């Protein structure tokens, strides 16, 4: 083993540990944030007793979950019952591996037996398939939910698992298609390259505003958050697939969900808000330094938490969908809109490139104009008793 390889392996291991720790730490923070923000939306204060501002509340909750009795139902399928929380938790953690969270850090040391020299990319695994790996692993989460629902041998859990599988499979299509819009524009599937493309030109949220909205909506469904939290639905399914779970195994499900929330927010920041890019400067793109790594990390975290805030805000504003409304929205609205959008976008980009227009503000402006018909379609044509009620019901009313 050469010193360079050993140095690379050691640094990668450190990166993994840092990202894993950071992710778990942010989950702790997000559970606190969700409760406090929910309270603030409801004119309350929320948990503010344990520690400063109530920041230690998640630790108290965690301690409670650790010491609680764990009940395995008598008729449950033991192996699958135990496996389901892990299947929910692990893929959610894995997703973060391909997301770049800061600008490369220059590292240089040589102790003879171990050495590294160069810019260390601030991403755990810079694998060539990039975004495809995220799409693949986020689908595995559905196994955790379905197995949990099936293995519990409880009708509520079973219904929750069924709902979840249908929902996640259908929204994955719209999610993938809205990501394709980004891939067409950037011409690359690895996330560091997508970030680099946005740094040199412009953030994709402007030319791809409809794709952004599609991604936002399908991501909500993908991680089972309100208004699409039908698998849980505490008011009708008594928490759905994790009804029969208790103690730490129960806590794994919400933790997996919160990690998915953090990852989705980070992914949105990366795909549409330029990742760790600092807006209006080129300072962060030139010669890397440790200071630049830290500053870009702060910007990345700020963007991520902006999206987490938005998700929590949506959760505490909108009521839950009915199941047929959910499937109708996914298959009859989001999928056709995403397909049509992709076609129009591809033609638009082809025309712009044939005309030889550089990827600059004019390019972005023209692409933004391309989005306007879809905004019109969504707001004035589709959103007329159809988005939620569904076409068939409208016909029945009119006949």
């Amino acid at each position, binding site marked *: 083993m050469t010193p360079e390889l050993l140095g690379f392996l050691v640094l990668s291991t450190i990166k993994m540990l840092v990202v894993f720790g950071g992710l778990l730490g942010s989950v702790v923070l997000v559970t606190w944030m969700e409760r406090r*923000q929910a*309270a*603030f*939306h*409801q*004119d*309350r*204060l929320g948990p503010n007793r344990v520690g400063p501002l109530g920041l230690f509340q998640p630790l108290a909750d965690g301690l409670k979950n650790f010491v609680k009795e764990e009940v395995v139902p008598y008729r449950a399928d033991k192996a699958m019952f135990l496996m389901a929380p892990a299947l929910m938790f692990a893929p959610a953690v894995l997703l973060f591996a391909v997301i770049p969270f800061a600008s490369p850090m220059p590292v240089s040391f040589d102790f003879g037996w171990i050495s590294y020299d160069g810019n260390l990319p601030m991403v755990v695994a810079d694998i060539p398939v990039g975004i495809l790996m995220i799409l693949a692993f986020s689908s595995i989460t559905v196994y955790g939910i379905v197995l949990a629902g099936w293995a519990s041998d409880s009708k509520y859990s079973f219904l929750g698992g069924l709902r979840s599988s249908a929902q996640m499979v259908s929204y994955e299509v719209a999610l993938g298609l809205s990501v394709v819009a980004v891939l067409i524009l950037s011409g690359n599937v690895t996330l560091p390259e997508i970030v680099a493309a946005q740094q040199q030109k412009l953030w994709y949220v402007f030319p791809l505003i409809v794709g952004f909205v599609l991604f936002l909506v399908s991501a909500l469904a993908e991680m089972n958050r309100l208004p699409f939290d039908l698998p849980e639905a505490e008011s009708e399914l008594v928490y759905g697939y994790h009804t029969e779970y208790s103690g730490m195994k129960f806590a794994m499900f919400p933790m997996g969900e919160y990690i998915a929330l953090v990852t989705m927010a980070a992914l949105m920041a990366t795909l549409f808000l330029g990742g760790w890019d600092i807006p209006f400067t080129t300072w962060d793109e030139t010669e890397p330094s440790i200071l630049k790594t830290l500053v870009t990390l702060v910007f990345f975290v700020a963007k991520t938490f902006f999206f987490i805030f938005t998700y929590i*805000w*949506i959760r*505490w*504003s*909108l009521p839950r969908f009915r199941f047929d409304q959910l499937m109708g929205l996914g298959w009859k609205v989001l999928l056709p809109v995403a397909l049509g959008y992709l076609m129009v976008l591809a033609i638009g980009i082809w025309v712009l490139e044939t005309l030889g227009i550089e990827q600059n503000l004019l390019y972005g402006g023209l692409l933004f104009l391309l989005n306007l018909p879809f905004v019109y379609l*969504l*707001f*004035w044509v589709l*959103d*007329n*008793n159809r*988005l*939620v*009620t569904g076409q068939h019901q409208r016909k029945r*009313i*009119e006949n």
Partner: protein
Amino acid sequence: MAITVKVVRRPDSDVSYLRASLKGMGLSFKHFLRKKVTMQYPEETSEPEWKISSRWRGTHRMLTDEQGRAKCVACGLCPQICPANCINLVPGEDEEGNRIPLVYEIDEFRCIFCGYCQEVCPEEAIHVGVHFENSEYSRDRFVYDLERLCGQQHPESTLWDPSDPKGE
């Protein structure tokens, strides 16, 4: 002739989901910035706009005369009227021959805080009080004896008056 039903087309603003959602999110954001209504209870026990009603019926107190003796004359009306049967009264006489309660105990666990004892008392001695912080470390501390009842300092309740229902 067939019955025709006229379907009135409702305006877009009534049937839209997106616009209603955006409006709702705007509203919840307004609430996010608004002043919170939570009272930080153990630290703050009252606020200018929040106080207990003077008709609140809480734990009892016994009023005393100038010499510090209980006003009670042990007439026996309060244990008689008490629907929860929580008052234990043993009447007796002092050296001057006045009727006094030898034992006067109220089990606050059994009490339903109806306020009948205060209403029926001819001497205006026993009262329900405007008070709600009653925690104790043992159950038997909730049987209040005469000494404890006389020692309570909280304001007594002004019961609901049928001739003045709004308390004016």
